[in-house]
């Protein structure tokens, strides 16, 4: 097949078919789904027939007349692997969508943007220069935004807003890096850019970090991951599958290009990236163990898997010329993740179809009710947790060996630590797999009937699972063929391929399973204990206060008597002199600010970053108020600044909150959160006014009503906080390296 033909099929056909679906089959989602299936299978076949051309090295095509010059489209071996993966996952998601989308709304729009996303994602992988890469990346971000907000409920719109702002923020960062490269070289063709960042001095490193972090937004790297656990669960399942399975890979592909092609090899930068990956891996897995529902768990799991990949890419860069193992492992793991995560998201969609929920209790008894789907789910879990024989095992073994090799080569303490972190990450991965498996147990008590309407179409659902399972098993059993496929793309490197089924390699998943089981048991007992405690209504604050009060057999003082002398005293202070007055105000506001910042930190850790509800109100308002008191400004000025900066964030989607009487579950959860949030602010105010007793009572109520805040705080957050500290230390140590060019480590 000629390259031009392939480009027409992969880049133009999705757009045309998408417009057809939107124009003609708007009221017939079934036809759209079938057309989408046909297009993606056509792309898969044409990609497969491009094999010879890719490996003989003449798969490039130049389009003239764009962007005041020409753009180059070419298929490299690594990009080729991603193209095959993309078309396979899209095929499965399309097959599944035939069943799934019948119950949804606005199918025409969904399929239009589903296909545009397909076309632009393939464009990212075939682009031969960075400007084409950036263009397709941008189209993809905008088109996938429409998939994220498809449900158009409150959560989806919130998540979509976060997603679009963060995507564009990231791509602007990347664009700044591209500007620097283009200014230096005058070209952005990838084949002319090998090792270009090394020739740019310090600005090369700056450009590298801009590109890596900018594209890291898309890949869900830690400081920029916050959109991911929000956006993936709210999309319809076929869209979640491709968002998680494929779109994250575009970020990974960009980081690969930045590391391998643009930067070449650089040990010190590699270490920073590896640490970033390790933090992502552990934090994602830790949050997954304690997540609220099945799809959120899968989203966190995606994030954790991207951490594996970035860890591998960083290690490979750190290994310098011997980095073959690391790059192979990273890309292998990216492919694996695309296959099993997409399947798990599709299964989540299937569970939603038959049970009407994405909570864990929707999974209970699934293996009894539907053995085939249960087996597919177990296969996915086995693959993700690294069971030998399936693909996850291969990827993890390659990454683990790369880490060991890096430690062996450099005897650097960092790699020892990273290797241990890798084991912890694998254990946490198996822990959340245990959590899903645990939720699948039971079924006797679950008397709910399956929802009707799916029975006729199960074959299609199973076909979509089977496609991906085929991929999982193939990449698990024939790892050599995949590795040899990737090798020509990494020609400048060398390194030995390890024996994958060696004894030590077989031992490590067992280790991970055992530690993971223990971790899960701890987490589970925490969860159950919390539920029991809640049911017993044990009230520590109440009990202590009662004990104190009743020691003399009567109430010593009621609330009024507590309040009165205090108020009188404060009134006297306030009215005495202006200095004391000011001092008092200052102390009060300082205390309030500190409490607010700490509170906001925990709230952010707990719920992720959300513009209007979390950060802005407590922190910025507190800080402004504090500063204004400090400098003796009036409050009106504060309010002006505060409104000035936040007016664009609030009130965009919140206006008709009262009008909306849609009492579905999401709304209830949000209302609940809003109530809790208000309580939290009241507590802060009470503390600030010195009413500690009331505040204590409210704190108790706050945590009792908000049980999940504790559940997320114990594993994920503490590990994350520790890792962030480690990461910052390392980063600080690297700053002199950036200016001197000499590695500290």
């Amino acid at each position, binding site marked *: 097949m000629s390259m031009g033909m392939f480009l027409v099929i992969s880049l133009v056909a999705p757009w045309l078919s998408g417009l057809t679906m939107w124009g003609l089959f708007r009221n017939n989602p079934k036809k759209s789904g079938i057309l989408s299936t046909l297009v993606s299978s056509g792309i898969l076949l044409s990609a497969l027939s491009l094999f010879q051309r890719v490996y003989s090295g003449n798969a490039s095509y130049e389009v003239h007349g764009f962007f005041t010059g020409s753009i180059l489209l070419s298929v490299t071996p690594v990009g080729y692997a991603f193209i095959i993966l993309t078309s396979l996952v899209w095929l499965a998601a399309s097959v599944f969508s035939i069943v799934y989308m019948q119950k949804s709304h606005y199918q025409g729009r969904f399929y239009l943007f589903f296909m545009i996303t397909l076309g632009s994602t393939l464009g990212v992988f075939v682009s031969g220069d960075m400007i084409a890469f950036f263009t397709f990346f941008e189209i993809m971000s905008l088109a996938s935004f429409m998939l994220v907000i498809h449900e158009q409920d409150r959560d989806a719109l919130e998540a979509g807003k976060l997603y679009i702002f963060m995507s564009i923020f990231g791509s602007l960062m990347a664009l700044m890096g591209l500007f620097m490269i283009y200014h230096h070289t005058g070209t952005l063709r990838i084949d002319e850019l090998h090792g270009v960042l090394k020739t740019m001095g310090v600005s090369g490193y700056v450009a590298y970090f801009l590109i890596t972090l900018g594209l890291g937004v898309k890949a869900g790297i830690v400081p920029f991951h916050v959109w991911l656990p929000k956006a993936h669960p709210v999309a319809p399942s076929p869209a979640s599958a491709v968002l998680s399975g494929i779109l994250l890979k575009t970020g990974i592909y960009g980081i690969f290009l930045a590391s391998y092609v643009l930067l070449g090899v650089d040990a010190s930068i590699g270490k920073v990236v590896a640490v970033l990956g390790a933090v992502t891996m552990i934090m994602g897995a830790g949050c997954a163990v304690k997540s609220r529902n099945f799809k959120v768990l899968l989203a966190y799991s995606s994030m954790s898997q991207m951490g594996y990949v970035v860890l591998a890419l960083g290690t490979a860069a750190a290994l310098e010329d011997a980095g073959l193992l690391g790059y192979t492992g990273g890309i292998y793991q990216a492919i694996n993740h695309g296959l099993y995560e997409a399947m798990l998201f599709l299964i989540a969609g299937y569970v939603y179809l038959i049970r009407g929920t994405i909570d864990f209790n929707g999974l209970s008894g699934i293996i009894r009710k539907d053995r085939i789907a249960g087996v597919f789910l177990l296969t996915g879990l086995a693959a993700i947790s690294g069971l030998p024989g399936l693909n996850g095992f291969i990827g993890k073994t390659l990454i683990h060996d790369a880490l060991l090799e890096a430690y062996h080569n450099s005897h650097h303490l960092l790699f020892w630590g990273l290797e241990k972190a890798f084991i912890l990450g694998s254990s946490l991965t198996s822990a959340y797999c245990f959590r899903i498996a645990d939720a699948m147990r039971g079924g006797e008590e679950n008397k709910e009937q399956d929802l009707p309407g799916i029975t006729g179409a199960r074959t299609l659902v199973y076909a979509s699972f089977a496609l991906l399972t085929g991929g999982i098993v193939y990449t698990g059993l024939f790892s050599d063929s995949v590795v040899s496929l990737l090798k020509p793309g990494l020609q400048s490197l060398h390194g030995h391929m390890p024996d994958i089924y060696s004894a030590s390699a077989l031992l490590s998943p067992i280790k991970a399973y055992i530690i993971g089981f223990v971790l899960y048991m701890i987490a589970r007992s925490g969860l159950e204990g919390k539920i029991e405690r809640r049911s017993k209504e044990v009230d520590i604050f109440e009990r202590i206060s009662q004990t104190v009060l009743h020691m003399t057999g009567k109430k010593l003082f009621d609330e009024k008597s507590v309040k009165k002398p205090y108020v009188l005293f404060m009134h006297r202070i306030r009215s005495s002199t202006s200095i004391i007055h000011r001092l008092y105000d200052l102390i009060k506001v300082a205390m309030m600010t500190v409490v607010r910042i700490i509170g906001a930190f925990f709230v952010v850790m707990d719920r992720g970053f959300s513009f209007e509800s979390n950060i802005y109100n407590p922190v910025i308002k507190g800080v402004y108020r504090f500063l204004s008191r400090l400098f003796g400004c009036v409050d009106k000025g504060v309010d002006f600044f505060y409104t000035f900066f936040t007016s664009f964030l609030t009130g*965009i989607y919140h206006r008709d909150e009262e009008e909306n009487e849609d009492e579905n579950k999401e709304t209830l959860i949000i209302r609940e959160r809003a109530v809790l949030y208000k309580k939290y602010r009241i507590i802060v105010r009470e503390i600030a006014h010195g009413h500690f007793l009331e505040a204590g009572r409210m704190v108790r109520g706050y945590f009792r009503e908000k049980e999940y805040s504790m559940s997320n705080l114990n594993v994920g957050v503490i590990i994350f906080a520790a890792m962030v500290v480690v990461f910052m230390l390392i980063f600080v140590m690297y700053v002199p390296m950036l200016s001197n060019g000499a590695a500290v480590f």
Partner: protein
Amino acid sequence: MENMLPLAIIVVPFIAALLSFAAGKIDKRMRDGLVFAASAGAFVGVISLIRMVLQGSIYTFKTYGLLFRVDEMSVILAFVTSTLWLMSIVYSTKYMEGKNNPDRYYASLLLTLAGCLGVAFSGGVMELFIFFEMASLVPYVLILHSHSSQAHKAASKYLYMSIVGGFLMFYGVVVTYWVKETGDFSVIGSGEALPVTALVAFLISFGIKGGIVPLHSWLPDAHSVSPSSVSCLLSGITVKVGMFGFIKLVYYISPAYFSENSVWVDVLLWMAVISIMLGSIVAIGQKRIKRMLAYSTISQMGYILLGIALMTHRGLVGALYHFFAHSLMKGSLFMIAGAVKHKKDIVYLEDFRGLGREMPITMMCYTVAALSMVGIPLFSGFTSKWYLGLGSLDAGKPFYLGVLLLSSLLNVIYFFPPAINAFFPKDTVHNKKGALRMDELHPLMLVPIMALIAGVIYGGIFDNFMLELASKATARIMIR
């Protein structure tokens, strides 16, 4: 013949303005036809002039005591002017239907067109001053058009500031003649430098016209009270006339002050940065669409000033290309704002919620223009941003690249929410009434908007002639 064409381009709208005022008293349709014919004639004339210029005919000529000059830079301004004017006049036929004083409106519209085209073809400071005054004072009538009290206030503000700018410019022109004894652009740049006072006078005068930040205060008021068909011209063209003046000032009138590392370059750069950031930040807080667009114009004029002041080839290409890109984007955005007001009586941004169901084509155009404003590839806004960014790196000042990208991010914050709210309102999810219920604009209003948007897309994707023109113009300017 060569001399006749530019002259005709300026004179035809001028005469047509007088004729149309008379024609309006006789027959409405005759007037409309005359106005359209005049602006279309100017457009065709400019197009044929561009062909001649691209083939290399650059010349200066003197008629009736006035010096005219035809080169790439002047045809760029003339092209965007005549295009946007033609579109605005087509748009006006429906938009101004049934509103007060149509004859006065069309006559002053054509007079302003003649003034702007005159600025484009002026060959010396005196001619620049004459046409500049024509392009500054006549819009007073247009801003005043609705006769509301806000319109009176805004128009007075505009008039006072324009007159101050005009006096200062007159001072500069007189001093130029006194020092150089000629006003010809091709000779005044060389030799003895102008006094600093003249430079400052020119700077303030062009700054007022271009809406650069300390001197911008007329702009948001005037843009938001005037009819939308006028605000699209004010924002698309007349502020660019000020920017055109800046190019003339920096590269022709007093290049001695703008050498490398001169303090005046830094002054211009900082004016640009402050305009960009302040315009963007203030636009975020706006509640009415036209005020938001007006502040966005201030920020975009900062882009152009930045490109001029960077003193690099690619920076100036970006600035000249932004003449084209910004007038198309902002012209269509103002037309959309006017259309929404005209059809639905919506002026507040938050009322855009759900508008995509009723006016899908208009809102699609809004979305494309917004994307282009942000600088997404495939739209012209990206091309100008690309060249401006490279220009700032060429100048060795990556700080300004950061400013550009930060301002793009701010653009996202204020341009996207109306588009998102328009197409995805929260309350129409499970509601079949949420389906499309078309209530689109009249074709005569829709076609100009769509034509401008088509220009935005064409300019972003294809290797277009505007870029060729801009780089040729830059080469000619930079040679000096």
